[in-house]
């Protein structure tokens, strides 16, 4: 299978701390990959390396497309520029404004509204959903109400048939289970497990249950390491 983005033996160090160690991951075309792991596991660093915002200390990153805008990344509502009027931000990325936002700055919106604004503008970039385009989302369901969470899940499911791929990091196992083709488990900067949703279907096991079991294994292993 041709990969949209391939990471080979990626390591990243901040000072003396290794955030990632020897991570290899290939994201296939039209594939949605979930990243799961405890806080500090290296999920954000991995996404930023895939987005080209961080350089790996070691390893190689290859992206299929060199077209501008083929990689879109959203780090969460805190990464939005707070002093920009929300409607100016919408007009910039989506080409329209929302009357209910008036002249309010992004900083004055609620957390959930900021998160939805950021997701809307990020996902609009792959609205033509070009083949080989890659959407990278860091904790996208955080702060969303149930309606907005459902909207996000449906948006993610929609990008797949149109040729775009996504890598989504989240602690929300149920939501991830609903959209991902595969979940990669990270612990202390390394890939420790991988669950393919197709196997859950074959085994007749609920997707969420399968992911929760894998996460429990990860947690137990971590506690064992701590002792």
């Amino acid at each position: 299978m041709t990969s949209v983005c391939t990471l080979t033996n990626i390591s990243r160090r901040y000072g003396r701390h290794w955030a990632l160690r020897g991570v290899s991951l290939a994201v296939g075309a039209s594939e949605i990959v979930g990243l799961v792991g405890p806080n500090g596991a290296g999920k954000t660093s991995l996404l930023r390396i895939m987005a080209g915002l961080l350089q790996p200390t070691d390893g190689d990153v290859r992206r299929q497309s060199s077209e501008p805008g083929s990689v879109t990344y959203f780090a969460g509502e805190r990464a939005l520029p707070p002093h920009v009027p929300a409607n100016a931000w919408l007009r910039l990325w989506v080409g329209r404004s929302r009357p209910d936002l008036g002249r309010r700055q992004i900083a004055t919106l609620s957390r959930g509204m900021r998160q939805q604004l950021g997701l809307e503008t990020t996902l609009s970039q792959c609205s033509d959903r070009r083949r080989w385009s890659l959407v990278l989302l860091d904790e996208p369901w955080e702060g969303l109400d149930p309606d907005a969470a459902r909207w996000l899940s449906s948006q993610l499911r929609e990008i797949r048939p149109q040729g775009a791929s996504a890598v989504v990091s989240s602690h929300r196992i149920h939501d991830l289970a609903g959209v991902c083709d595969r979940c990669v488990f990270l612990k202390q900067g390394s890939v420790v497990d991988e669950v393919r949703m197709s196997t859950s279907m074959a085994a007749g096991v609920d997707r969420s249950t399968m992911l929760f079991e894998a996460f429990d294994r990860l947690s137990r292993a971590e506690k064992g390491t701590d002792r």
Partner: protein
Amino acid sequence: MTQPGPLKIFATILRPPPAMIAAHAVVLVWAGYLGWLAPGDMRAVYVVLLLGQSFSAATGFTVRARRGHFDQVLAAPACRMVVGLAHALVSITIGVLTWLLVAAIEALANRGHVPLGLTLPAVSALLYMSAVAWASALPFARYSSGVVWLILAIVLAGAGKLLALRQAYAAAAEPGGDVWRATGAALVFPPLMVTEPSAPIAISALLLLGVAVVVAGIGVLAIESFDVPLVDPS
């Protein structure tokens, strides 16, 4: 929708705050008043604009980039050189626009004479100040280089060095004057290029322009190689 270009993105994120726009409007009104009252001498307006540019061009990069504000424009496979140039261009725009408007007012008031703001020394002082203010603020927050430059000017004035710099610069006008000393003085305090227009400044002005290009190039290269780890603003 196709992705907007870096110029458009930076124009939205780095738009000057209302106080900055108001300050530039006040300078324009002042220029109009001076143009009516004493059209032959607009030097004070240009000196204030140079000081203003040291603030308005200092938009900062690293702090905002680490908070994720520029993620969508910096994400691969963006050409970081183009991103750096766009950031520089947007940062200096308001100061340059006001400068051009003041020059237009001066030209109108002087009925067709070449305005001081469009002479080689004045233009090189503006571009030098813009480049230095923009590039030196890249690792810091907005306005940082303006604050530093203001403190430097106050310290120089307090220590009586401003007069020495002015004399060094003006001395270059005399036969056998030291152009290098004059250029050094202009590098430390570029408003001299505007306040002392009688000095033989062509070489100094070109040297200042050269330094401006080098400084801007260093800034663009810094953005090109910048690593952007995410820092939580809280």
